[in-house]
């Protein structure tokens, strides 16, 4: 009977194309707006590394001014980045299973082909543990080992896109690349990897693309690499050399660790407290002990990756869907009233009220399905618009299968709900009502 009802629904839709188009359009627009905002919210709030998000921790140390907190609105918070030398020492202490200090930089790449022009590429300067910590997938090679970190070897891991640009997508492991006058050996090429939000560096943009390449943190001092990300300072210091900058109290390095289990968390905090206490004896960290470690979800909340206005926007967009559905109810009523004679005839020929009700519900379900499909096109357009608006052309805000099914599901279910009252009205039509007048 379902198949028969679908067939009747399609015939009915063709019978009154203008009315059908209006109903489909109302649902499509409602779905387009609501699912676009829901997708953005979903991408913002999704766990980017669910398999180990409770084992990865961002570290904050309160090295800020003794006179005022880092954040006047949230005085309990320590600076969200650490100094270069604190990060360097914590990595060296290696008290966690894995640890990675990191910051964003950029380097000029000298082209392999003499005819091409040099170009600038974004780099993440980090520790070798970064790749294993964050489950970075590789197509060729892998990350560098601790010896490369220790020796500040000029090695580089390329993104898939940069490898495509430089080596035509071939396995470039072992090849050499000249950047800022230094020759780097390619040790790995990562596969497509777009953790969303970019949890390891929400400070410089939770929805930015992954960097073009990765180079060892130890090269910072050797190559005098400047940060291309944000840096914060509170202390008036005389800085006349790069080494002085590295030893300053400016905070510009993100520091992440991976623990073996959540039970190790308190132990690591104790380690941080011990480290800071030691630094206090050296005259640093003049504020009370205020060290924190945040797992991935806590870190996302800390940075308000999902802003409250996003939640409000989702609510408003679903209210808009309700308005569209109210329009659909009105249109459905009009459409169904136009089918009084046919309904009356079907009742006379033996259709029960339930049968008629089901037929109408299937019809609005088919209309909802059509609206859902067109709505998905609007969602795709909406997401393109959002990417354009936020200058994020890498497809970070994308529609996955879950959202596709959600969109179509919401369209079908909501249109069926919208069709309940009209269908109930129609199934109450008595069988003899229209037979004489048809």
């Amino acid at each position: 009977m379902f198949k028969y009802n679908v067939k009747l629904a399609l015939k009915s839709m063709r019978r009154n194309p203008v009315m059908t188009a209006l109903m489909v359009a109302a649902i499509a627009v409602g779905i387009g707006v609501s699912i676009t905002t829901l997708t953005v919210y979903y991408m913002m709030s999704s766990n980017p590394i669910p398999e180990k998000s409770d084992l990865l921790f961002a570290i904050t140390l309160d090295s800020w001014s003794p006179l005022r907190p880092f954040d006047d609105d949230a005085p309990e918070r320590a600076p969200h980045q650490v100094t270069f030398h604190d990060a360097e020492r914590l990595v060296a202490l290696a008290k966690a299973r894995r640890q990675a200090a990191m910051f964003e930089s950029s380097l000029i790449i000298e082209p392999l082909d003499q005819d091409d022009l040099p170009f600038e590429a974004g780099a993440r300067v980090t520790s070798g543990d970064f790749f294993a910590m964050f489950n970075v997938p590789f197509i060729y090679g892998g990350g560098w080992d601790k010896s490369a970190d220790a020796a500040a070897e000029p090695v580089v891991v390329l993104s898939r896109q940069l490898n495509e640009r430089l080596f035509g997508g071939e396995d470039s492991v072992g090849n050499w690349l000249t950047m800022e006058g230094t020759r780097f050996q390619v040790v790995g090429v990562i596969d497509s990897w777009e953790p969303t939000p970019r949890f390891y560096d929400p400070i410089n943009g939770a929805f930015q693309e992954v960097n073009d390449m990765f180079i060892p943190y130890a090269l910072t001092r050797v190559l005098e690499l400047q940060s291309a990300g944000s840096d914060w300072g509170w202390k008036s210091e005389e800085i006349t050399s790069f080494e002085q900058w590295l030893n300053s109290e400016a905070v510009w390095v993100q520091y992440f660790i991976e623990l073996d289990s959540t039970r190790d968390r308190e132990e690591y905090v104790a380690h941080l407290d011990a480290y800071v206490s030691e630094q206090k004896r050296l005259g640093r960290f003049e504020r009370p002990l205020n060290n924190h470690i945040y797992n991935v979800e806590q870190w996302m909340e800390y940075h308000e990756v999902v802003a409250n206005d996003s939640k409000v926007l989702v609510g408003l967009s679903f209210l808009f869907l309700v308005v569209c559905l109210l329009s659909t109810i009105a249109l459905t009523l009009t459409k169904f009233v136009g089918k009084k004679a046919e309904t009356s005839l079907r009742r006379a020929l033996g259709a029960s009220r339930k049968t008629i009700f089901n037929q109408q519900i299937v019809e609005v379900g088919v209309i909802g399905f059509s609206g859902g499909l067109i709505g998905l096109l609007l969602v795709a357009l909406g997401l393109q618009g959002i990417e354009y608006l936020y200058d994020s052309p890498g497809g970070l805000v994308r529609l996955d299968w879950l959202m596709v099914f959600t969109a179509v599901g919401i369209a079908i279910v909501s249109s069926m709900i919208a069709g309940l009252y009209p269908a109930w009205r129609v199934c109450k039509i008595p069988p003899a009502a229209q037979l004489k007048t048809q």
Partner: protein
Amino acid sequence: MLQMTHIQKIYHTELVQTHALRELSVSVTGGEFVAVTGSSGSGKTTFLNIAGLLESFEHGTYLLDGENVSGLSDDERSNYRNQKIGFIFQSFNLIPDLNLFENVDVPLRYRRLPSSERRQRIEHALETVGLASRMKHIPAQLSGGQQQRVAIARAIAGQPKFLLADEPTGNLDTVMAHQVMELLEEIHANGTTIVMVTHDPELANRAGRTIQLVDGCVQAEEYPNIQEEVLQAARLNGSQPLSAQI
């Protein structure tokens, strides 16, 4: 087959009450062909609607195929209509965007018959009315007479015990009306009980019995095709109706 006793039907509006049927008692036995006549407003269609379980009634008793149908639920009435009654309407009442096959299929769908059986019944019904070759046509591609034949095919495809026809020739010219009437007579000859409402005295006289309604009551009953002496003998024997004895 059909026995109505003291049936009363009143239509209520805010201002007036209209007595459509007053203490109507009618009996139709299996195999009869009964024509119901009467002027407009005499209650013919109301009688037919009640007979076909399309409308309810206030008072009286209605036995259909031996069962008291007064207390049936809406679902049971739908099922009864679908299983036992075939309808033919004056204005054909075909669904315009379904082809002939699909139109005849409508009541069979609600009976949930297997696809192969439905197909066989539809083809047979359309063959009976002479439209088997036009199964894929839509109603708008047919003449009025042909459309009514499709409606008859739809009514007989379910092999009902009981065929109710409301002015089946009312929208047809004389030639087509006679063709439709011949078809109904053929169906009747095959054993189906038919109750037909008509204005046309000539067509009414082709039925085995005519019932004339006036103001919702039976005014007269006639057996136009039976000689008076046979009728008298039957009355003396107390057997009703007589058309079966012809």
